[in-house]
């Protein structure tokens, strides 16, 4: 019995020493670096990759809710951005590899905004106060990013806002999706394309009262919106170059992430995110803004981008529409997506 115990303790000690050896680094080494930000009962991982010499850090806010930061670290666009800048892929609370660590844990929009602020502070403290931080929010990341920038004048800490197919006004998003289903669906039916599916979607869309969209209808809109992308023939092919996505070897456990992400999404819906509408406050944003949208994005209609362009208070603002993309232009028009961001950052940094 004592012999077995000694072996066990020796193994534990050896492993502890191995663990300590991975603890302290500076800058962003070639193989990347992981920071954990402990805030309000959670540890939030932030994965740093890219050009250590750059003065620019792009903090990526992932979609979902229920996604994870490293899902976005793949393809040609990520390779281009990493060769130019430091990319910080964070996992939001309750998603990806973010873990609850304490009793004061709660999942609310307000807490997620505080989390982003804590990550920005840590990035500045660790990488240098002189670094220029840009936010890049995709889909739900567009909701969170807009919420963050509007709250407590956080925009003063950020050099520029890049919103890619961002859901900064969810009631408007739902109304526009219904309108797109009907317009594109009727046009497709005239051309005799995917008749059965489009008929189902158009009939359903016509039955929706756009002034009374509840959470269940919102979920159905989202589900149809992804399905519809498969019916559009002019979408570009999925990017297969650049950084490969290695799901099994990722720091994120895909099984746990999928289950807890769904749970977190439900909590945020219960917190009222389906009612978040920031359009009327966009005039308060004065930082440089780049809006990137897929023309065939049924999940978050390009109309949200056009509306944002009108309402933003920024003097430097522009919108780029990708003609062969749906909800994720970074995957279908990767090179154009990346060069739009590089061009924006170089002009505004």
């Amino acid at each position, binding site marked *: 019995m004592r012999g077995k115990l000694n072996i066990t303790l020796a193994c*534990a000690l050896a492993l502890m020493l191995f663990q300590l050896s991975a603890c302290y680094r500076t800058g962003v080494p070639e193989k990347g670096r992981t920071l954990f930000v402990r805030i309000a009962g959670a540890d939030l991982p932030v994965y740093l990759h890219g050009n250590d010499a750059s003065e620019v850090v792009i903090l990526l806010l992932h979609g979902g809710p229920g996604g994870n930061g490293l899902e976005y670290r793949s393809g040609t666009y990520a390779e281009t951005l990493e060769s130019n800048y430091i990319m910080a892929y964070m996992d939001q609370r309750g998603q990806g590899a973010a873990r609850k660590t304490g009793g004061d844990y709660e999942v609310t929009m307000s807490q997620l905004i505080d989390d982003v602020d804590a990550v920005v502070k840590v990035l500045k*403290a660790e990488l240098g106060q002189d670094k220029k931080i840009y936010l890049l929010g995709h889909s739900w990341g567009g909701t969170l990013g807009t919420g963050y920038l509007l709250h407590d004048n956080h925009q003063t800490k950020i050099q520029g806002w890049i919103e890619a197919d961002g859901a900064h006004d969810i009631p408007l998003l739902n109304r526009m999706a219904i309108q797109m289903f009907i317009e594109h669906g009727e046009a497709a039916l005239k051309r005799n394309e995917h008749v059965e599916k489009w008929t189902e979607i158009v009939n359903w869309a016509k039955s929706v009262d756009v002034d009374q969209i509840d959470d269940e209808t919102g979920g159905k809109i989202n589900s149809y919106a992804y399905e519809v992308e498969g019916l559009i023939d002019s979408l570009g092919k999925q990017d297969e170059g650049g950084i490969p996505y290695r799901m099994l070897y990722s720091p*994120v456990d895909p099984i746990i992430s999928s289950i807890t992400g769904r749970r977190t999404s439900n909590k945020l819906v219960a917190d009222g995110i389906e009612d978040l509408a920031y359009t009327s406050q966009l005039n308060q944003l004065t930082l440089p803004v780049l809006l990137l949208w897929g023309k065939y994005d049924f999940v978050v209609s390009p109309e949200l981008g056009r509306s944002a362009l009108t309402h933003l208070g920024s003097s430097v603002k522009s919108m780029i529409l990708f003609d062969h993309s749906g909800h994720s232009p970074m995957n279908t028009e990767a090179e154009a997506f990346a060069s739009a961001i590089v061009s924006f950052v170089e002009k505004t940094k």
Partner: protein
Amino acid sequence: MSGGYFGHLAVHPGLFVNSEWLLKQKIKVKEKKKGDKVIAKEWLWGPGLTYYHHTGNSNVYIPGVELIRRKSSAKRFYRDFALGSQFLWLFNAGESFRIDENGEVKKGFLASDAQFGISTSIGWGWKIQRDQEKLRSLYISPQVIWLLGYNDGIAPMVSMKLGYRIFNKTPI
């Protein structure tokens, strides 16, 4: 006593050691034309310690205890099922930071948190060196630890053990 490779999702590497003590053994003899067939059914229990490293996620220590039901015969293969209780001590695999009450960023040292889980596993073993006093075997065992209270709910941690086992008492 057993030990070997532990892989979270099979690929995030670690090591484990387990001990086993026999609680109860029932040996059944079935008469067959070709000769008697002897089947041993055992209840065992044992503590164990597992460590694994998940790059960019965590370094995890898992002390635990299992109750094992094992069925073996004179053939080379045996199988078992285990139900256990596991304590997971997770250290962040990276640097940790927090914001103090004055809004200053502070670096943490070996930041960790703990999870509790119920483990279930099935195992298949292949007996080797049957002629020696202590039976030795190789085995494979997929395991799921159901983490209770992970991000306010239950989450399954899937892993795989590939091990070498020395039996205290030869079942058959």
